[in-house]
């Protein structure tokens, strides 16, 4: 069962730290990746049980950090950096191109559940603007005309 595995893997994470509470973030990261990229209520119960805390405490952590998702997301997460350096190098054109190509607005998921599109703060690749993270893998120097190719590549 996936649940047993997750519980055991969380125990392994817990052993890395002098205090079990430190394992809350890595445990949530693990739970999120095992629940299709987001954290349903069940995930909070599992993490809380494994670390002897409460689901409410886990939710208070998840809601603080940008990379934890509290709603279902697409199988591929596309995140476009729109901070200063990407911004002055045409990030908004890239955002617009993804919105057109996917037929959704930023923050939305395609009806087939394939993609979620977001804008994000600085991804730390400013000199290689525009940075687009595709499931956390960073594409560098992305221009609007690369967008159809990226979407096609992901769709396979």
């Amino acid at each position, binding site marked *: 069962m996936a649940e047993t595995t997750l519980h055991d893997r969380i125990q392994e994470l817990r052993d890395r730290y002098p205090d079990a509470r430190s394992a809350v973030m890595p445990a949530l990261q693990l739970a999120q990746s095992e629940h299709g990229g987001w954290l349903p209520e069940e995930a909070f119960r599992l993490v809380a049980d494994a670390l002897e805390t409460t689901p409410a405490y886990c939710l208070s952590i998840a809601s603080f950090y940008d990379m934890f998702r509290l709603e279902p997301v697409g199988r591929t997460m596309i995140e476009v950096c729109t901070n200063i350096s990407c911004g002055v190098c045409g990030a908004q054109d890239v955002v617009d191109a993804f919105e057109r190509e996917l037929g959704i607005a930023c923050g939305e998921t395609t009806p087939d559940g394939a993609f979620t599109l977001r804008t994000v*703060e600085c991804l730390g690749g400013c000199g290689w603007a525009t940075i687009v993270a595709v499931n956390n893998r960073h594409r560098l120097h992305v221009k609007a005309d690369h967008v159809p190719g990226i979407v096609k590549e992901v769709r396979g």
Partner: protein
Amino acid sequence: MTELVFAGTDGGAITRIADYERTGGFQALAKARAMAPDAVIEELKTSNLRGRGGAFFPTGAKWGFVPKPEQLAKPHYLVINADESEPGTFKDREILLRVPFRFLEGCLIGAHAIQAKHVFVYIRGEYEREFEVLVEALEQMHAKPGLIGDVTVVVHRGAGAYICGEETALLESLEGKRGQPRTKPPFPAVAGLYASPTAVNNVESVATATTVLELGGAEYAKIGVENSTGTRVFSLSGNVVNGGNYELPHGYPLKDLIYELGGGIPGGRKLKAVIPGGSSTVILTAEEAERANLDFTSLVGMGTAIGSAAVIALDDRCCMVQLAVRVSQFYEHESCGKCTPCRVGTRWLTGILQKIEDGRGEQGDLDLLLDVAERINGKCLCPLGDSDAIAVGSYVAKFRDEFQAHIDLGRCPFDGGASLDGLLAPVEMHERMIHAHHIPKPLPVIA
């Protein structure tokens, strides 16, 4: 150009331990371990290595502040801040990717110096490849008996929060809490991680500690300029032809970084302004940038700071009001909400700036903006809100005519031709989503 941090890489990466050892790897660690911890700290003090994260705090002094185990019998911790997220900064990721062993060697040197048996590397969650490279490098090191010894090194991934780059917020986050800054004192040196003695150092600082031990502190101090010894990895971005990281000696002329190494401004456009040390720093006009050198003293002398050594070039299509809106949106989005002046003030700054950009600005708004900035600056537990106030305040101070023109014309004078036109910030995206879900929006701050 002399490369110290990236020494031996020849433009590539050293990710196999045998390759690192061939270039003299781990000799600095052997040297350090043959020395008393205090002697290592003295070597760092002699080098005058100052922290590369942004605060430029002397690394040797920081390690020296950690009580000795006989003075404070608690576990000692070395925590590495790899939560690089100051807009414009992308040097630490390249250090992690290209010289992971030099970085990890520096961690072990630091652990020896402060007599820590535990090292935690807090790496931002968005750096997935960098995390993998580190873990692979650590595995290779574990295969060498005695190299890591009795030290435990844990790589801990963040989950997307700029505030966790602030050291006490980072420690909270590492303890499994929301990343909100702590009241200081007590300082981390005495009561840091798990209320125990802790040093928190930046990636580049510890990677450079390896170099300091290799060369010797006195030799290292000969590189660079007074008050800013050694080299620095500068992140160049924005409107430049060749963006990227450049390891240069401190004191290098800013204009040479932009025009010679950076290849100048694309499309034959004119340089308008430069943000010299990450988004938190005071902006320089193009004229000021001509005269600036990339070191602590030169930049402080011009009223700004070297910060995280992130140089952002902005060409003449940059509307300073739009820039201010975008910078302020960032700090508003990343404010942890603990201190009222920051939580409320950053939202106010964004609101006033957006009003001016939209052509609804009134004459009193500029004074109101500066007044709000004043009410944030220095009034919170950490400098996040200050950064918004200082950055935005500097745009108003140096480009006041442009702000005034927005108010006088009742529109943006760039008329849709500016480089940051219509940019969708995450904070706006979130508000759109809230709206789409029919959750009542908070009352607008600005009428």
